[in-house]
Structure formats: C-alpha cells, structure tokens
C-alpha cells in the first residue's frame, strides 16, 4: 500500500513539469510599448506606437526609442501587426498614453477607445489625448527636451497638472464613462507641438470638446483651466489679472490656493436653472509694474477680491456661452446633475436635452478671498 502511494507520488511529479508554465515569458524578450496613437481610421487603421529598445551590456543598459507605424482593418489588427516589424513579443501593459488625431476624433472616437478599454493588455488608466494641428506620428517623432520618450514626457506633464492646469487630464476609463453616461459630454486634453531650439516639442494645452463620440471643437488653455476648476479639480494654477487699485491699474499674478465649486440644479421656477457657486482662495504671487499696493489696507483687498469675483463670473459665463451656443456640448454634466438630484424633472427633459441645454439659464456666483500675499505685505518702494 505504502509502495503504491509512493509510486503514484513519483509518477505525478512529471505532471508538474509537463503542464507547461501558464504564460511564462522572459522579460528581455518583450518590446515595451510606452505610448500609442491612432492617426487614421479610413480606409485603414493607422496605428503609431512608441516602443523602447533595450540594448547594451548588463552593466551599461542603453535605452532607445523606436516609433513604428502599422496598418490594419481594425485597431487590434493594426496593433497585432506590430509584432512583425518589432520582431518580438509586443507588451502593451506599460503603455501610458493613447493619442487620437483630430481627424479620428472628429470622425468618432469610439473606434479608438473600444479596443483600448476592452483589451486586457492595455490598462484602463492610460491617459488619452487629441492631437491638435499635427498628426500622432509627428507627436511621437518630436523630441522632448528632458525625457527619453514622448510618452514619458506626456505622463510627466499630466502629473504636473496641479501646477499648470490648462488642460483637464482624463484616463481612458473616465472618458469612456463620460461617453457612456447620460447628460454629460466628454472632453480630452489636446497635445500640440511647439518649436523649441529648432526641434518640435510636444506640450499639453487646451481641451477637445466632444459631443457624443465626435469632436466638435476646442477650448484654449485659459478656458481649459477654468473648466478644470469648475470640475472641482485641485489646482495651483497661476493667472494674471489687470487689477484696478487706488494707485492705478496693474497686472497682478494670482495663484489659486483652494477651490470649492458647487453646481446645483434649481427647479423652483417654471424651468430648471443651474446655479454655479465658486469659492476661491487666492494668493498674490507677483505684483507687476511697480504697483504700490499695500495688502494691509482692507478696502484695497476688498476691492481686489470683488474684481476677482467679477472676472471669474465673466469668464465662467463666457465659457458657458461657448459650450451652450457654439458647441452645444454639456461637458460640465448639467444633465447628469439634474438626473441625480431631480430625477423626475430630468425624465421630462432627457429626451430632448440637446435642445434644452443651449437655453438653460445658469446663475454664476463667484466668491474670492485673498488668503496670502507672499512674504511681503508692503510694496517694494524704489528710492535713489
């Protein structure tokens, strides 16, 4: 009996080795895709990928980026076609960014994100961008000054969003969720190329506005910063405002220290209205042109705060006008808020929200306080 048991045990040992090893790979046999993009959908899908090529000896590893373009009938087949020029197993899980050209975005971005969201190889935390005034291939072939790869460069910019908030970053799952949800339209940040020392450098600035899955227009950097603020995203953005003071009008740079935005539907009247309350804490960063402003003067500060509130009111109204009348794209999600807070009323309007949204009345109320004026509260007075 014992002998038989041992025999069975011995015979089952090879099973362990014969079963193969699940999806065993070797890390050096993989080609890591760091970023990809879709340049064209018709007649063929044109996929541009940025990959990393590792070489050198074990002690001095060298890294080089390779940009490859492949074609296919669908995004997945174009992505699959990559392994033959790459000559190795293409590994998608480290991709950080996915770019879509303006052409594809205007034609319908669904063809791009369907595979990105569905594929188990690509992460749903990939950041998506729309290229403006350039193709995806041009972006990937540009030269970021510090980072080795464009994808890394774009990833770093996204991480710095709080500092430079002139775009609103979205991971692909968030974007897909916005497309999927009722009463909200999607946006994506845009990538542009600028000239820098004779080379093209990609930057992230501005927003592409979508209606359904089709892009309908752009927001510039300032509008995007305000949009990001209205979305309640934490930011430390700087902005300059011509400020009227008792001494005259000077450009003063402010930094946002804290933002609290409250968007609510108001259904008391005959038609629903939206109310936007913006509470901002600001600090004074820089006072331009030798302005002699004393921030210890309460009246002065009060007047500045009122001007700031006025500016934010005006800019918010401008942005809303653009969104409501020009693009008719509810990217702030008024419909979604109405649906959540007042489902009965939403049911009445949901069918023809497209016609209701442009005419929706919005009350904007901004309240700004200056919390901090840097290390100096007195102006620097230049004397001989």
């Amino acid at each position: 009996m014992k002998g038989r048991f041992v025999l069975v045990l011995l015979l089952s040992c090879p099973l362990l080795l014969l079963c193969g090893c699940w999806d065993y790979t070797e890390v050096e046999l993989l080609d890591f895709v760091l970023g990809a993009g879709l340049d064209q959908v018709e007649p063929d899908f044109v996929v541009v990928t940025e990959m990393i090529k590792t070489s050198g000896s074990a002690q001095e590893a060298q890294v080089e980026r390779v940009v490859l373009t492949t074609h296919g009938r669908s995004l997945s087949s174009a992505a699959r076609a990559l392994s033959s020029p790459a000559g190795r197993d293409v590994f998608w899980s480290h991709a950080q960014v996915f770019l879509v050209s303006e052409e594809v975005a205007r034609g319908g971005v669904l063809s791009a994100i369907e595979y990105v969201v569905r594929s188990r190889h690509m992460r749903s935390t990939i950041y998506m961008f729309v290229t403006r005034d350039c193709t995806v291939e041009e972006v990937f072939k540009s030269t970021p000054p510090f980072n080795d790869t464009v994808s890394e460069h774009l990833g770093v910019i996204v991480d710095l969003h709080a500092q430079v908030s002139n775009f609103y970053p979205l991971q692909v799952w968030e974007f897909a969720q916005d497309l999927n949800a009722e009463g909200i339209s999607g946006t994506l940040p845009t990538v542009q190329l600028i000239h820098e020392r004779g080379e093209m450098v990609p930057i992230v600035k501005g927003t592409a506005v979508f209606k359904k899955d089709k892009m309908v227009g752009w927001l510039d950097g300032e509008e995007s910063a305000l949009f990001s603020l209205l979305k309640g995203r934490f930011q430390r953005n700087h902005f300059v405002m011509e400020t009227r003071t008792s001494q005259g009008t000077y450009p003063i740079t402010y930094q946002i220290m804290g933002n609290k935005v409250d968007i609510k539907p108001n259904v008391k009247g005959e038609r629903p209205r939206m109310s936007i309350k913006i509470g901002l804490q600001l600090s004074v960063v820089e006072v331009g042109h030798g302005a002699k402003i004393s921030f210890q003067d309460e009246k002065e500060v009060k007047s500045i705060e009122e001007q700031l509130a006025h500016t934010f009111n005006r800019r918010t109204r401008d942005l809303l006008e653009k969104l409501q009348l020009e693009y008719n794209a509810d990217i702030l999600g008024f419909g979604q808020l109405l649906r959540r807070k007042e489902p009965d009323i939403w049911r009445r309007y949901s069918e023809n929200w497209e016609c209701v949204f442009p005419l929706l009345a919005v009350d904007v109320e901004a309240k700004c306080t200056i919390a901090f004026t840097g290390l100096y509260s007195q102006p620097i007075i230049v004397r001989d």
Partner: protein
Amino acid sequence: MFFWRRAKQKKARGLTSLTNSLDTNIHWFKQDIFANDETIIYRRFRTGDPQSRACVLVFAEHMVKHEFLSEHIVRAMMQGPLPGGLHKDELITYVTEHIIHSNGVTVTGSFSKLSELIVGGRGVLLVDGCDLGIAVDAQGWAKRQVTEPPSENVVRGPRQGFTEDLGGNVALVQRRITNPAFKTKFMTVGTQSNTKVAVVYVDSVASQALVDEVIDRIEKIEIDAVLDSGYIQELIQDSPYSPMPTIGHTERPDIVAGKILEGRVAVLVDGSPFALTMPYLFVEAFQSNEDYYNHWVPATFHRIVRYISFFITTSTPALYLALISYHPQLIPTNLVISIAASRQNVPFPGIVEVVAMGLVFEILREGGVRLPRPVGQAISIVGAIVLGDAAVSASLVSAPMIIVVGITAVAGFVISPLYNTAVLMRLFLVLTSSILGFYGFVLGVMAIVIHLASIKSFGVPYLTSMTEFLGQNVKDAMVRVPWWRMNLRPKYVAAQDRKRLQSAPGRKNR
C-alpha cells in the same frame, strides 16, 4: 554448534561479582574485561599497617587526575593505620569513612558496574580479602575553557558559553537559578557510549507532564552512541519529517535559564556544547536573548526587522522570478526597462538564473563555513569579486539577480535558527512561482502555513502566539513589551506559578 557451546561455556565461567581473592579479581579484569586495553593501569601497593594488606588501584590512565589518586588514595592508604581485626565490609566502610578524602565514593561488588566506573574516569580501589571495590571520583581530562559561544554572539549580554563538559554546563545554568526548584535529572543514553544526559527544569514552573514526557522519550532511546545533542534532538522531536525545528538548541546558558524559567525543559548532553530546549515554537526563532537585555523599543524594532528579513530571505527570489517571468506589468515602467536591458545578453531563463545563483551562494557558504578563517576569507573574495562581478560582466547573470541573491543571503543570516529551513522554503517557493507566477507563490505560502499550523512541539501548537491578537502570549511575539508589562509567564508552557513579576518600582514614575 561449536561456537554456541563455547559462548555458553564462557558465560558459565564468567564472574559477575568480585571474589575475596585480589589476584583472581585482577586477573579477571586483565584477561577478560580489559583484555588488550593498554590504557588501564593497575597500581599495586600495600597498606602501611602491620598487616600490610595488598591493594590494587585500577584506573584508566588518561581519564583521571593522577595527583589526586596518588595523594588521596595511595598515600592515604599507605600511611593511614588500618585497625586490625576488620574484615570485608567493615574494612571497606572504614576505608571510605576514614581514609579516602573524596566527595564521590561508590562501593559495589559488581564487575560490570566497576568496569563502567573505571572507563568513566574513576579510580577503583580493590583490597585483598574484600569482595567489594571502592570507586572514587577522580575524573580529570582535557577541558575547554568557558568562552564566548562562537555561534551566538551578543553585543550586550553574558559572554559565557557552554563547553563539552556536562557537569560544568549544568553548573553554568544553575548559577543563574540558585533556587531549590531548579532540578536536574541525569540519565544515560547509548549502549556503547554511555553518554550522560541531564534534563534540567524549574520544578515550580514547568508542567510535570512535560518533564515526564521528555524523560520518557529519552529513556526510550536505544542507540549505540550519542556524540552530540543533535542525536537526541532528532530522536525525540515531534514531526521528524518536517524541516521545521521543533526543538531549539543554544550554546548560551543565559538562554537556557530564560527558557526553563518560562516553563520549558532543557536537555544537556555530555560532550556537546549545545543544549536543547523544548517545546520550541516558531516565534522563538525570532526572539533573541538580546531582546530582553536591551530597551524594549529597539528590541521590538529589531524583532520586526527579523520578521521582515524572514520574508525577504524566503520570498525575494520567488517574487522576482514571478515578476519578471509572469507579471512584467506589475513592475514600474522604468524598472522593468532597466531589468530587461540588464538581462539582454543573459543566455539563461530566469528560473535557471535564480536556482543557479542560489546554488552558487550555498556552495560559497558551505565552502567558507568549515574552513579556517584565513582560507574562508579567500573564499568570500572569490565569491564577491570573481563570481559576482565577473559573472555580470560576462553576461552570465544579470545585475538585478546579484542584488536579489545578495539581499536574500544577508537576510537569511538575521534569523539564524531558521536558516536551513529558510533555504528550503525559498527553493520551494521559487519552484511554485516558476510554474504559476504569483498564483503559485501564494499557493506555496499557503502550503507552508498549513504545514506550520499542523505541527506541534511537545503538545504545543507550533504557531502558538502568532495566530492570536490579544492576550499575554502576544506580548512576546511580534513585539517585545516592556518587562513591567510581561508580568505573566507564557501560558502555553508555564503550567504553574504563572506570575513572573510581582512589582516594578519604576512604574510610578514613567
């Protein structure tokens, strides 16, 4: 048939106890019991009294203190006036009571007993006309000094370590617990070696059942020789097929004292500087005697470091292998690229690299550990420079692998009681994760935990005090709480007298 008869005849002829004739007795020793044994000395002399009785002192030449025998037996017998008219037993009693100045005296007439005593280092005095021999304790042989134990160094703590001398070892422990409750039971194990074994415990704390169990298990041992306490350990331990140590060993008397004060039982073996302590639980591998001598906050920190090191030494190669072979997506992008670059020209798959480097390290360690110190250093230079650096430049192994092997090895030495077990666990986990990645790793860990949870040491579950979150047992497990909080002895071993700390005067001021 012939042999059988001859053997029987010999037995029939054989003497079992002494006769009255000195010559017969000596002849019997010389011709039969100690035939061909040239270390046995027969010192023949006569007593100083008018009757001038013939005496023979029998002893093993290199096992005794010669001055002692000549001073206290031969000279005493030659000079001491023996009163006349004493016979046999009276004479022997007179000699033991009036003449021999020695603390250890055994009187017996049995040949087998006497011969055992002689080879055990006693001098046996035979007097003509008496059928009893007097065995006098005169053991004296080369002994090692009490030195700091080489296998368990401390920064703070006593520097004494056990030697190979059983009596001295018992004394080293007894000096720390000078209390009548400290009990020692001597036993003899080994049909050939007749090794003395001491079972040491504190009567007022240890459970009697445990003591009886230990004594019973040792009594049942039938083996020809016991050359080290390792024999006893393997012969009496629970779960003998498990690589986990279920009996602890130490070279330090302070550790033995600490353990038996918690209610454990210690076994000391003659000829071995390693004492055994039992029951031995998994937590004890992470407890160091220095924990109790240092302040409790750093002691707790070091204990946590030991737990982390145990995880590192058992798991790092397996996790590394699983990551690079199955889950490259879980490594941060920059790291995975640099790992891929460093493995670019390495010809072997990850599993071969991991196993081979682990083996190389074990070879280096095994090669270095038993060598004399100067040669050992040469080995480590070869290991570090030749195998480490050159192998990486030659692209035989990748640089991250060297780091993995290095951290694994260093962390392994942190928990030295589990070192050998950790090597096996590491290999096991490497195999499981090479087959199934993280999934295999988790399955391997589960298998190990199930095994640990299933074994016991002398009736105490092996994972005791690691599987609970509250109570007195936990105070000395993951953390070492201050002494003024550890007022009770551990419940799982201390059967009686559980109160360890009665009062701590400093507590009011804390």
